[in-house]
């Protein structure tokens, strides 16, 4: 299968690989996919509790080159976005940016799901709570 230059670039130089402390209150973690399907994406977003803006993102992905590229691209895409705006990101944006062929569209769907899952996780420990006072901790390198 021929990969687009952008997929190859993200595969060779993935952006924002790594992990945040998943117990950090400002971090939302989304894990989507399943090993038996050949794709698992973990996307972590550090979200400012007051502005609700995504300040930083990390990913780890088990999957094909397109899955790695989709998640790498998504970490760049969401940074600086308000979570309400991030929730509206559709997989088609990823397909277009990376020139994914039809057989790889599921990778972009998974990446969209990962954003929603990560924001959902963050909301779970933030809805109805006061904004956290703690200083954001430094990202842990993998």
């Amino acid at each position, binding site marked *: *299968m021929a*990969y687009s230059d952008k997929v*190859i670039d993200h*595969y060779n130089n*993935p952006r924002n*690989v790594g*992990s945040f402390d998943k117990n950090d209150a400002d971090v939302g973690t989304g*894990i*989507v*996919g*399943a*090993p*038996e*399907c*050949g*794709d*698992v*994406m*973990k996307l972590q977003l550090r979200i400012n509790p007051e502005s609700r803006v995504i300040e930083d993102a990390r990913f*780890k*992905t*088990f*999957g*094909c*080159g397109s*899955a*790695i590229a989709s998640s790498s691209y998504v970490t760049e895409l969401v940074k600086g976005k308000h979570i309400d705006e991030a929730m509206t990101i559709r997989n088609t944006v990823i397909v277009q940016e990376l020139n994914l062929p039809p*057989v790889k569209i*599921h990778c972009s*769907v*998974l990446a969209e*799901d990962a954003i929603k*899952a990560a924001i959902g996780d963050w909301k779970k420990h933030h809805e109805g709570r006061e904004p956290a006072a703690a200083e954001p901790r430094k990202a842990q390198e*993998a």
Partner: protein
Amino acid sequence: MPKLPIYMDNHATTPVDKRVLEAMLPYFSEKFGNAASRNHSFGWEAEEAVDRARGQIAQLINAKSKEIIFTSGATESDNLAIKGVVEFYKEKGDHIVTCVTEHKAVLDSCRALERAGKATVTYLPVDKYGMVDPDAVRKAITDRTVLVTIMYANNEIGTIHPIAEIGRIARERGVVFHCDAVQAVGKIPVDVDRDHIDLLSISAHKIYGPKGVGALYVRSKGPRVRIAPQMDGGGHERGMRSGTLNVTGIVGLGKACEIAAAEMAEENRRLLDLRDKLQAGIFERLDEVFLNGHPTERLPGNLNLSFAYVEGESLLMGLHDIAVSSGSACTSATLEPSYVIRALGVSDELAHSSIRFGLGRFNTEEEVDFVTDRVAREVKRLRDMSPLYEMAREGIDLKSVQWKAE
């Protein structure tokens, strides 16, 4: 530094050996005759070349020249053998015994017969090494069984089946035994008498011959085996396979068999050394690598490994200057993990992580060292990027996780 890209996918196909090419060249334009032309020297010359090739092939598998039928390749040989036997022996019965890790040419021929209502098929399982139990073959044979078809060695995992024993069982029960020996002929000693084989499929391009030509061995005596032709025409190849003979290709197949017969023992020693070096080197540098296939009863050039927590296709992408395969070449366009690896009882996740290295005549030690290093580095890089590896490091049992699949 070896010349890149490195070809290490010799189960998919092999380059034509220069000696084979030399033998073929005169038959394109100088000696272009039709082997079926009986009344001039052009035809005689072509027929002579075809007969010489028949002899070279027969010698490699301990058969007689006249028992070799030329085809367009092993897929045709498999189709002709399976459909030909079922059609010819339809008065006797309609049951086939085969196994789940056969090549698609065998499995889909069986399925086509099932769909058409012409046969019922028993698909035998394999053990964790990919081997069929001869006793299971014995038990599967019924009074309606007309054919047992089991491959000599598997194209993905290299496992060599106990063919002589399976052949003996089929012979005792008076059932025709077909063997797809594409990966075995020319690589390991194959003897149709010792192994009690009645029909045997051969391909040229897996043994440093050209693509588009193959052969089917059809036993003529003890017992004589009959097949119904699957193509109508001029009645070539004793009526079993019509169509003007591909003389150039046949000359190439013959020469490839002659070289294989002469050099097999030495080549095997060399390939085993290289394969073992590759295997040892990778296991030394990486943990959680699993061998797919039989540890010892395996083709000398084959190494099929699963790299836990790394997806096969992404690993192939990282090894872009090395030609290896994930799954088999025939199915690598699909996203499903290999049915052969799954049949071993390996988890789907590990099946997704499998890579096949196929060493061949032209691979060098320098290439093996380069591949070892590249694989180790790429697997480490991808594991650093793998959430599964991270979870496993944290002591999380991946099987206990409730995965949210799409």
